Every structure is written in structure tokens, then in C-alpha cells.
């Protein structure tokens, strides 16, 4: 008779008493299906193919950075202890922008990167505190030329489809019949209060524009396929150049929407070190006013700008959201292997 091999690693036939076992964790399993994991890998392959054909160099930069970000609407996560971490801690990057600009200033030429970025407190059907960005920079292109390349990339990934571009001003005129540049703050606030219960919400012009954009304009964009929005109010320039257009100061910045889902943000990049420093300082003043911690300026970025950033445009595109578009899923938590709650 052949002896039956005993596999000592299999669980005993009778379960141990419940008291001696740990809790049964059900969220060890991935939230995304294997088909979606394959689709993500497919998108990455298409992106690398796209940039290889165009001679854009793939780069990597650090996730843990010495400087945070001054943007009053973005909160970084901090790593505070560890033998390699100094007394000031390190920040998990909210985007690879500053490091990539240092590469550009050092003469890298066109570059791209696919990396993780982290933003504290951003979680929901379209946000995960840890997410994947595709970011790239093109010396010699302005933001309109870069929009064409972004459309090419999106069509390379999602299949060919038509696209359009609207200025921020035309977007508000067409969707809400308001001129976002000339309407008074009271008018904007009145329209918002007329359509939405906002309680005792208070804020400046940009707050009301942001509220109308997220609550009324984005739903209007939902049925309109690929749409770029460009020339934002100068107060929302972030790191974009500011120019005068038709009597208004506008930021040479664009956003890409696919059926109302915000997918990418791009700039005709500001290269002036002094203006960049002034904007960082203005951000910090706003942070102080709002009771938020101020952030040390990224002196390494400012030094790179002083050394000379080539005239360029750059864009960051949310990879997880691109996968939402490609898969037809509506909740980002279903396209991530392990969303925040399971990570």
C-alpha cells in the first residue's frame, strides 16, 4: 500500500477554536478585477510606445522630497521619522513637477514620467490619496501645441475620437451664460446660492468660480466627449505664464475633460525665477490667512529656474482616471488593485 503523503502545511481538518484565530480579514483581496489590471498594464505599454516613437525620455525622480508645496489647496503627506529622515521630515510628492523642471533646466530635453503622487484628504469616487500620474514636458511647445499632443496620446490610448477646445471664458458663457472675468463676486455667489444649498459658505471670486465649475459646468461637460479648457483666470495660474488677452489677464493653463471627468492639467510653464518666488510667497500669505501651515520654498527649483528653464509646456494626466475612461468604470476605487481603505 502506498503511504499517503502528509502535507504538514495544510490546515488541520478541524478548525482551531475561533478564540485562538485572528480576525477574518476579507479586504485582503484586490478591488480591481484581473481584467482591469491587464487593462492598466496595456495603457502603460501604449504610453511608453507613444513617447518612444516621439523621442521623449522616460525619467524617475524622488518620491520623498525635502520641500513641500505652497499651493493653498493641496496638502502633502509627511514622513516624520526614520534614520534617513532629518529633523524636518520629508514630504511625499504631490506631483513630480519641481524635480522634472530641475532636469529640464539641466538640459534633459523632452521628458516623461509615470509615478505615484500623494495628496492628503482627497478621497472619493474620483480621488484616492495615493494615485498615479503621467507627467511630461516638451521644450519648444506652447500650451496649444501641447494640447494637440495630449489629444494624440488620449486617442492613442482610448481609440480615435474627435476633440474640441474652449476658453474658460467661453465655457462659462456657453454653459451658464456668465462671463467669469467680468461678473461680480456677488453675481457669481448669487447664481451659486440660487442653484445649490451652500449654507453659510463664504469665499473669494475663485471659490465661487470653483464651486460653479464643479457643481454646474462639469456636469454640462459630461455629454461633450474630449474637451480642453484653456486660458484660466490669472488668479488660478498656479505655475503657468500669465498674458493679456482681449483686455483680461489670463493664465496659459489648460485642463482636459473627458465626458466631464477632469483628466489632465497643463501649463505653458513659468520660467521666471523672481515671479515664481513671488507666487510661492503669495501662496504662503494665503495659507497663513486660512490658518494653514506655511511651507518652505523649494529653493532647488528656484535655483534651477534662475539657471534657466528652457521655454516649455508640461502636463500631468491622471492615469487612474484614464483607466476609468478606458474601462467605463465610474468609481476610481474599482480600478485600483488596493484603494486607500485596503492598502
Amino acid at each position: 500500500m502506498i503511504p499517503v503523503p502528509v502535507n504538514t502545511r495544510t490546515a488541520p481538518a478541524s478548525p482551531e477554536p475561533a478564540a485562538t484565530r485572528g480576525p477574518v480579514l476579507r479586504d485582503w483581496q484586490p478591488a480591481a478585477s484581473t481584467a482591469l489590471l491587464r487593462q492598466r498594464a496595456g495603457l502603460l505599454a501604449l504610453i511608453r510606445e507613444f513617447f518612444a516613437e516621439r523621442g521623449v525620455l522616460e525619467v524617475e525622480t524622488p518620491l520623498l522630497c525635502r520641500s513641500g508645496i505652497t499651493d493653498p489647496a493641496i496638502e502633502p503627506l509627511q514622513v516624520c521619522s526614520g534614520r534617513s529622515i532629518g529633523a524636518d521630515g520629508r514630504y511625499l510628492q504631490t506631483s513630480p513637477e519641481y524635480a522634472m523642471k530641475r532636469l529640464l533646466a539641466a538640459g534633459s530635453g523632452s521628458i516623461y514620467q509615470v509615478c505615484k503622487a500623494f495628496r492628503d484628504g482627497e478621497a472619493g469616487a474620483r480621488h484616492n490619496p495615493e494615485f498615479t500620474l503621467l507627467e511630461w514636458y516638451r521644450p519648444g511647445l506652447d500650451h496649444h501645441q501641447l494640447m494637440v499632443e495630449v489629444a494624440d496620446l488620449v486617442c492613442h490610448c482610448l481609440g480615435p475620437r474627435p476633440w474640441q477646445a474652449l476658453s474658460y471664458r467661453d465655457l462659462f458663457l456657453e454653459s451658464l451664460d456668465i462671463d467669469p472675468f467680468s461678473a461680480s463676486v456677488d453675481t457669481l455667489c448669487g447664481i451659486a446660492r440660487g442653484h445649490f444649498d451652500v449654507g453659510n459658505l463664504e469665499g473669494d471670486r475663485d471659490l465661487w468660480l470653483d464651486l460653479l465649475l464643479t457643481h454646474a459646468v462639469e456636469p454640462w461637460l459630461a455629454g461633450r466627449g474630449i474637451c480642453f479648457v484653456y486660458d484660466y483666470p490669472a488668479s488660478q495660474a498656479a505655475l503657468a505664464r500669465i498674458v493679456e488677452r482681449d483686455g483680461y489677464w489670463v493664465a496659459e493653463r489648460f485642463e482636459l475633460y473627458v465626458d466631464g471627468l477632469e483628466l489632465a492639467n497643463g501649463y505653458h510653464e513659468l520660467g521666471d525665477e523672481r515671479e515664481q518666488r513671488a507666487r510661492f510667497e503669495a501662496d504662503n500669505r494665503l495659507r497663513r490667512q486660512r490658518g494653514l501651515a506655511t511651507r518652505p520654498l523649494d529653493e532647488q527649483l528656484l535655483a534651477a529656474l534662475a539657471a534657466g528653464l528652457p521655454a516649455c509646456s508640461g502636463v500631468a494626466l491622471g492615469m487612474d482616471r484614464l483607466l476609468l475612461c478606458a474601462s467605463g468604470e465610474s468609481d476610481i476605487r474599482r480600478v485600483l488593485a488596493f484603494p486607500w481603505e485596503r492598502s
Partner: protein
Amino acid sequence: MANFSTNEFRSGLKVMLDGDPCSILENEFVKPGKGQAFNRVRMRNLRTGRVWERTFKSGETLEGADVIDLTMQYLYTDGEFWYFMEPDTFEQHQADAKAVGDAYLWLKEQDNCEVTLYNGSPLSVAPANFVELEIVETDPGLKGDTAQGGSKPAKLSTGAVVKVPLFITTGEVIRVDTRTGEYQNRASKS
């Protein structure tokens, strides 16, 4: 009570808003590419029952509301108040007509129901999903009529009026879905 930030708003959380206790139903985080983030929050005002959506700046906080749902036994009414008892402690609570609302139509003595307490006092009462009540008044039943066919109004012991099949007669006990007010079937006489 503790304060809760918008990122802690979960379905079922009870918070104070404009002086009323409210229950959070849904919480959607929205943010433009750059700029101010908001939370669009669907909630129910537990005092009025109204369901609506309020927008908050992300990071705003609300005070938690001292609200709990308890299963209690309905005892009786004296016309002004309805009396309920916690089955474990035998503690009694009196609810006024505002708290009871339309639930009085489905309250039978000794039946269990859900009583929502706000700061220790009944704020609202929800009857069981199904209750068995006696018919006190309806047109005479039609001999030979079966389950199919028309319906007629029948008044129940609580005063509720429901539509019942033609063959149902006064004195019978029927089972009713309190969420829709619809007749389900005959119940054995209790």
C-alpha cells in the same frame, strides 16, 4: 459631542446642522483640477424628514448629534402622548404627535417599533415593516369571490384605511406593509 470633519462624513453619521439633528446619506468629494475642494453631502433632517444636498468646503466640521435608534415596545396612547418602553430596562418614553407623525396608523399595543431618541427624547417613530391589524369596518364580503378581482377600502383598528380584496370581512386580521400601506395577506385571528 465630538466634531466630525467632512472627510469623516459616512452614511449613517448623525450631525447637528442649523440646530437640527441630521443623518448623512451620501458624501461626494469634488475638486477642480486646481483650487478649492468641496463635499456635496446628501442628508436627512431627522426632525422634518426632509432629504436634501448641502455643499461644504472640504475640511469643515460639524458637531455630532446625540441620536440613537432603539427597538421599543409600544404600550398605549392617552390621546396626547404615545408611550414606549425599552424592553431591557423597562424605561418608558413618551412621544408627542410630532414625533409619532403618521406612524400612529400602524402602532398596535405590544408591537415592537424603532424609536429614534435625540438628547434622550423621542424624535421619530418607525413602525415594523409588517404589522397585523384587525378590520373594524368594511363593506360585506362577496360570497364566492376569489383572490382576483377588485378591491374595497377597509378601516383598521388603528384608524388606517387600506385597500383589501372583496372577500375580506370585518373582524378579520390582515397583514399590511407599513412602508407602502398595502395589504399583504390574511393573518390568523389573534
